[in-house]
């Protein structure tokens, strides 16, 4: 028993106090910025493995981008990846980053269905469906709930059964062999329910977009409530995406009744101790 306490003590504090301002270490490739420098745009488009780049004017579709960074190595004066991980949105069009644009990606508030915030705002239980996912987005969705990122503090968790869930998080390009199971899982989820696409593969098919082994008809007939770009999506992108969908980003939620753990990141205007500020994760 004492050994257990010793181990517990040795871990120190592992959780990230504020997941909305935490910085990612090293050379994370988040939201790109495209300058207005003139380059060979055909060459730029041709080198992208998933044809995520358009020419005249240059634009990058984050729903197709694998964040490999090849374009930034080839044209460093044209394209630069920032460490901004807040790339989630609910409108497909907003994943298109255009030349000269350097603003944060936000949700289109008019597209957020009312019942999402009124019914699911304080507690969101999700069922994950991997439909051809390569287990990297699955790994990051799991990591979002671990002791470091601790998404559970916001009442956002994954459930074992779709019948207990408020929505589906889909990973993978939706393989034909998984299409029916996805339909059945969605039908088993009670209303109101949301659909979240995590990762480039889910949003556009990614590198598999042209494969004859896919069946993406589910996505043609259902409305997507949240896109989480990335290859895989980073846990901070995932958590911040959910928070903004639920309207729980800092400025809007000073009066929310919160659990003690949930209080930390949400106390509006509170100054965190210096050692916890901007902590790397």
């Amino acid at each position, binding site marked *: 028993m004492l*050994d257990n306490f*010793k*181990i517990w003590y*040795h*871990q120190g504090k*592992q959780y990230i106090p504020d997941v909305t301002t935490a910085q990612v*270490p*090293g*050379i994370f*490739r988040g939201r790109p910025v495209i300058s207005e420098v003139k*380059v*060979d745009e055909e*060459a*730029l488009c041709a*080198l992208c*493995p998933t044809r995520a780049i358009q020419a005249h004017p240059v634009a990058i579709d984050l729903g197709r981008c*694998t*964040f*490999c*960074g*090849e374009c930034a*190595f080839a044209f*460093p004066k044209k394209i630069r*990846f920032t460490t901004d991980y807040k790339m989630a949105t609910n409108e497909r069009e907003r994943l298109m980053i255009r030349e000269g644009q350097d603003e944060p990606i936000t949700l289109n508030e008019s597209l957020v269905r009312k019942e999402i915030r009124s019914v699911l705002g304080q507690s969101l239980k999700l*069922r*994950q*469906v*991997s*439909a*051809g*996912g*390569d*287990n*990297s987005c*699955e*790994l990051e969705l*799991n*990591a979002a709930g*671990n002791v*470091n990122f601790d998404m559970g503090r916001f009442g956002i968790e*994954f459930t074992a*059964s779709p019948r207990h869930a408020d929505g589906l998080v889909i990973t*993978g390009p939706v*393989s*034909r*062999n*998984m299409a*029916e199971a996805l339909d059945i*899982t969605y039908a088993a989820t009670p209303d109101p329910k949301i659909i979240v696409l995590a990762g480039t*593969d889910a949003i556009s098919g990614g*590198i*598999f977009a*042209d*494969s*004859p*082994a896919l069946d993406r008809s589910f996505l043609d007939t259902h409305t997507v409530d949240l896109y989480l770009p990335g*290859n*895989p999506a*980073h846990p901070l992108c995932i958590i911040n995406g959910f928070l903004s969908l639920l309207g729980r980003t800092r400025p809007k939620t000073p009066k929310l009744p919160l659990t003690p753990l949930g209080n930390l990141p949400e106390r509006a205007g509170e100054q965190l101790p210096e050692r916890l500020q901007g902590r790397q*994760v």
Partner: protein
Amino acid sequence: MMYVSVKNHQRIPFSDIPVTEYGAFRELILHELMANPDDHCVQYFGVPMDGGIRLIVCVARDSNSDIRISSCQASSENTYPSCAASKPALEKFEREITELYNIQFEGHPWNKPVRYPWNRAMQEQRMEQYPFYTIDSEELHEVGVGPVHAGIIEPGHFRFICNGEQILHMETQLGYQHRGIESLFLKPGSVLQKATLAENIAGDTAVGHTTCFAHLWESLCGFEPSAQLKYSRTLALELERIAIHTGGLSAMCADIGYQLGNSVFGRLRTPVINFFQQWCGNRVAKSLIRPFGTHFPFTPELGQTLSAMFDRYEPDFLEMCHELFKLPSALSRFEKTGVVSLEQAAEIGAVGVAARMSGLCRDIRASHPDDLYPELQHTPIVKHHGDVYSRTKVRKQEIEQSLAHIRQLLTRIPAPEDGLSASAPEVQAPGPYPHSGHAFLHQSPAPAPGMFVLSLVEGWRGEICHCAITDPQGALVCYKVKDPSFHNWLALALAVRNNEISDFPICNKSFDLSYCGHDL
């Protein structure tokens, strides 16, 4: 000679592979290629050729690092006596050939569909009609699990036949994750597209599969990788092993309801995958491994960061392991649960951790080494009980061994050569790649025509095999991928027999097999 011997990723003209008729081919496989206990089939597949199907078999001999290859011409109009009937390790290869080309093998123990690929020969075969094994009895009941499971995990269907709580038989139906990867490799496209495909075969083995692809592609193009490249690949493979094994231990603790182990191992994985991000900008090391070069050479500064990270990781890791492996409630769940005997492991051709846990020493790092492994003189960790405990212990000791390998590597970080350094002087040209060292993917040589290459890499799960054939113009006509899970799913089915169904999750997690790597 009815076969040709090659070394790991040695390229040979395709015409050097002898073609025989099936009778002699079968005799050769059964009595010569797979005669020794250390012989294991790494690939056996069909390619449409000369109006029929060319069957190509590749068997690795661990004792002398040889891979022996032979072939025969077959057609879907004939039936052939099965090799799997006497060598069960070949069962899935034959099933795959039947599924894709409708070549029937007589006497195959259970020639069922493998993954329902989009280009299967019999399009009328449907996922929901999989011919599960059944036993007609009033005493027994069946339990179906999946494809959607309780956790955040990939899809697959498990069908149990139980006598009360006890599992008599378990059968796995896979294919839900099929994305048509092998056919996407054949589409004309850039090297970057192919590398991106390779790193998306199994996202938890991005380094393993992409390294295997890079070796193969460089060999096809006649390119010898630099010391820096070999170094960073070896280091990345060992880092990936530490990261995923640590996560695996966390999940094993979760499956026995041991919260402390689950949390501690879970958080210990974080700094390891975060190091990948510091190195290459991606937590699962996507974009790190590329053929011909790397955008992210390993620098002495990275070495210091890594070393400092492991100085903090190791004491916490060992402390937690010490506690876990003396905890009676954990040991009672691990010991003698899900046993696979040495005979079974050898018979089904298990690889990687699933082989080494029951005394079968099979490790490409030792038997067919490449990159810096010959210098590291890797000695595989082998356990003998074949139970969950052995699989857990192999993981723990492999993490310690990988730490030792990495510490050894950190004492001799190679200088980033010219053309690889990110700080190369900037050329004032307006065109692409002002830092000339980053253009390696676009100045690369083309694959040689009419070649055959087979590449083996020991990923954290076990042996990964990629295989390619080029046509007279140098374009790919065949690309085969084999994840270690292709062999090891059968080991799980054997392990759970006579166990309680409540022990299935811990058995499943102890093997930690890939669904997408199998389904492709």
